[in-house]
């Protein structure tokens, strides 16, 4: 990948156009003046006894405003830019130029949100001023790390904005995207202060700190607020890693996935979001982080069964998200039948091949889950609390694992079936279908206290497991979902078989001697 930013034509053109007439420069100066005026008002009217020291409050205010502003500008700028280019078909010209998809997207990511970066730079004198006045716990490295966090958050939102469909007529237009981001900004300004107020309870447990801090830099902010920026850590197999460092790493990791997804779309809109290999790697990373976080939770009362339960639930949810990213929809699968099948050995193709059906992915996800559970959760738990304790929980662990595997296979296979039948809109159909077969059973079962209804609902089982009151008749749910899995998998197989026959006939008529050649 070329990282020669200043010769990237998209960055060069974006800066040329945006700097013309000093537009961006003017906005930056006005922004700086508004921030200074805000600081003066804070100094004049905020009671230091009730509100705390001015340098801390002003530092948090400047950084807070900057996080929201930069992130929203970045997201809005990249989304609007890509969408406008798709609608106007100017993106076609970029796609067939000698630029690689990575260069195009890097250009969009760094050039379009130029204002976001400039505004962030403009705040540096103000934050440095606060730091020189002295803010409890904030050293120069903390300040630098806050800017790294700012960069990663901006980058993450920018990559989220890049995620656009390339087909004409799909997705929203640039105007509605701008309006959506504007609304998000207003909502953020309304709801962030209460969220900040709830930060203390949100960051009380290691797993909840991880759940929040891996995505947004709330622990870092709240740390500065209480005068201990290094107070919040990610507990990772007993190792304490400061959230000030973890948050940007996690955000850059997520940003990479979004960026990579869009690179693949630019290469070919029929590509699935992620390659299967990257899907396995990502799931493994999620498993390792999950296991690491929940291991430390034990002294706070998370028993082995609960740890297994939490791990399996995270694994299941992460698998479902990743299945969505690696499962080919109708057009992709058809192109596999026409052009891709037969290029490599069947097993290799099903496991790692581009656009092939997702069955072996589901199996791999199950194997990964069980292996990670054994190696990363149960073995450390055995060393920590004794293997006898682990064996004592074997019954509950087996139930949870069985539920995870069955649900993963069934929902993953249904996913493939719906996407094969309905194309991309199949995702919405699947979500509706899943909500219909899961939630009403849970709600009516709870309301009418009908155990057999609850026994059919996966969410009811997980809720009762977490509550320490396992539901009887897990086998009802297992039977239903195993049936759904078999039915959907066989249907997919039958349909693919039929498609292969039709395509082979067409190829024969076309006079193609060997389709795989």
């Amino acid at each position, binding site marked *: 990948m070329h990282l020669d930013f200043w010769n990237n034509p998209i960055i060069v053109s974006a800066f040329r156009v945006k700097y013309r007439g000093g537009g961006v420069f003017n906005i930056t100066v006005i922004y700086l003046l508004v921030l200074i005026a805000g600081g003066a008002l804070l100094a004049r009217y905020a009671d230091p006894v009730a509100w705390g020291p001015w340098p801390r409050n002003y530092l948090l205010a400047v950084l807070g405003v900057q996080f929201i502003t930069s992130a929203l500008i970045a997201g809005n700028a990249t989304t609007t830019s890509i969408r406008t280019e798709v609608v106007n078909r100017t993106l*076609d010209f970029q796609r*067939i130029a000698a630029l690689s998809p990575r260069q195009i997207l890097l250009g969009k990511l760094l050039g379009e949100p130029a204002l976001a970066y400039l505004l962030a730079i403009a705040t540096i004198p103000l934050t440095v001023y606060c730091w020189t006045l002295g803010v409890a716990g904030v050293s120069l490295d903390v300040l630098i790390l806050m800017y790294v966090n700012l960069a990663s958050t901006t980058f993450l939102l920018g990559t989220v904005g890049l995620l656009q469909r390339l087909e004409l007529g799909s997705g929203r237009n640039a105007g509605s995207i701008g309006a959506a981001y504007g609304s998000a900004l207003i909502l953020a300004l309304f709801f962030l202060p209460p969220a900040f107020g709830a930060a203390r309870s949100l960051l009380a447990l290691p797993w909840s700190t991880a759940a929040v801090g891996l995505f947004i830099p709330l622990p870092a902010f709240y740390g500065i607020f209480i005068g201990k920026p290094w107070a919040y850590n990610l507990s990772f197999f007993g190792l304490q890693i400061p959230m000030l460092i973890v948050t940007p790493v996690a955000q850059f990791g997520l940003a990479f996935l979004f960026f990579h997804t869009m690179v693949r779309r630019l290469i*070919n809109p029929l590509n699935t979001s992620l390659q299967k290999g990257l899907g396995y790697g990502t799931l493994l990373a999620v498993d390792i982080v999950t296991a690491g976080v929940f291991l430390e939770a034990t002294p706070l009362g998370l028993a082995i069964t609960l740890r297994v339960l939490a791990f399996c639930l995270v694994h299941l949810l992460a698998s479902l998200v990743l299945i969505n990213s690696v499962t080919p929809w109708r057009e992709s699968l058809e192109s596999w039948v026409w*052009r891709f099948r037969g290029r490599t050995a069947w097993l290799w193709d099903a496991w790692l091949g581009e656009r092939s059906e997702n069955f072996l992915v589901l199996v791999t996800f199950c194997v990964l889950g069980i292996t990670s559970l054994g190696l990363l959760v149960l073995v450390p738990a055995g060393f920590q609390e004794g293997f006898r304790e682990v064996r004592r929980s074997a019954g509950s662990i087996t139930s949870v694992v069985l539920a995870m595997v069955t649900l993963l296979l069934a929902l993953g296979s249904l996913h493939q079936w719906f996407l094969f039948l309905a194309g991309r809109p199949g995702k919405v159909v699947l979500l509706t279908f899943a909500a219909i077969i899961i939630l009403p059973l849970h709600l009516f079962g709870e309301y009418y206290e009908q155990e057999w209804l609850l026994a059919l609902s996966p969410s009811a089982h997980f809720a009762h497991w977490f509550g320490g009151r396992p539901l009887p008749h897990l086998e009802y749910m297992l039977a239903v979902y195993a049936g759904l899995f078999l039915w959907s998998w066989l249907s997919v197989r039958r349909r693919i078989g039929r498609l292969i026959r039709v395509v082979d006939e067409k190829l024969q008529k*076309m006079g193609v001697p060997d389709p795989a050649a």
Partner: protein
Amino acid sequence: MIEVRHLRKEYDKTVALENLRLEIPEGEVYGLIGPNGAGKTTLIRILATLLEPTYGHVRIAGIDVLRDPLRVHPLLGYMSDFFSLYENMLVWEYLDHFARCYGVPRGQRERLIEEVLQLVSLQVRRDAEIRSLSRGMRQRLCFAKTLVHQPKVLLLDEPASGLDPAGRLEFRELLKQLHAMGRTILISSHILTEMADFCTSIGIMEEGRLLATGRVTDILQQLQPALRLEIEVAVGQPRLMEILSTHDSVKRIEAVNGRVLCRWGAGRDALPDLHRRLVQEGIGVISFALRTDNLEDIYMKVSGHRTS
């Protein structure tokens, strides 16, 4: 230069391209003719690597377009019938942007930009904002962008649509210049008379199939084994009709507005004998001419008399 085999494109249940086979040698100007929905744009978009075919093999300059699109990109200049420009850029900035996108070295960029601006007669608007350009100028600017990296192959999808007659004339001259420079050009257009003027080969498409392809003269010969003869006489038309109807090589005689039209099957060499005989018979011949089919006639014949 362009080689297409077994090309097929399906959109749901619609077949846009059906088992297409096409070869365009280097330096040809190949015109794609066909009604809307014939598959011309689909073919050009596949060649431009913007669309994946359902099946098929496509090679440009020996490079597999489907497997190695990034290597093909520098060779291609693509212009579509519908296009937009970056409204807030200046004319030279727009060309500079694409020159950079194609990796044109810094030292050559300025010279190339001046050259293409001159080629499309936009030098005087070099520093104008694109939003201030007229439609014709925009079209010329887009064409200049297509040429700025000196591509070997030009894929032009209805490039002259929307241009006024003068603009079309200029455009035609431009294409002739590019042809003279040895570029391979694939162009689709509805304006068949214009295509005849600069295309060395044509392909007639309908419903995703290539009905006929080859050099214009070859196709003419294929479709028109008999020559069309048109004779205008001042006196002696009944005698002329009599002579023609008894001649072994003459078929389908008809008299239209004082002229006699017929099919002549004996080849060009035998025509002087016929002319001599008519004069000897005392028929006052005003004109004695061969008429060849034009591109519109060919298209109408091949496509079964459907209108474009």
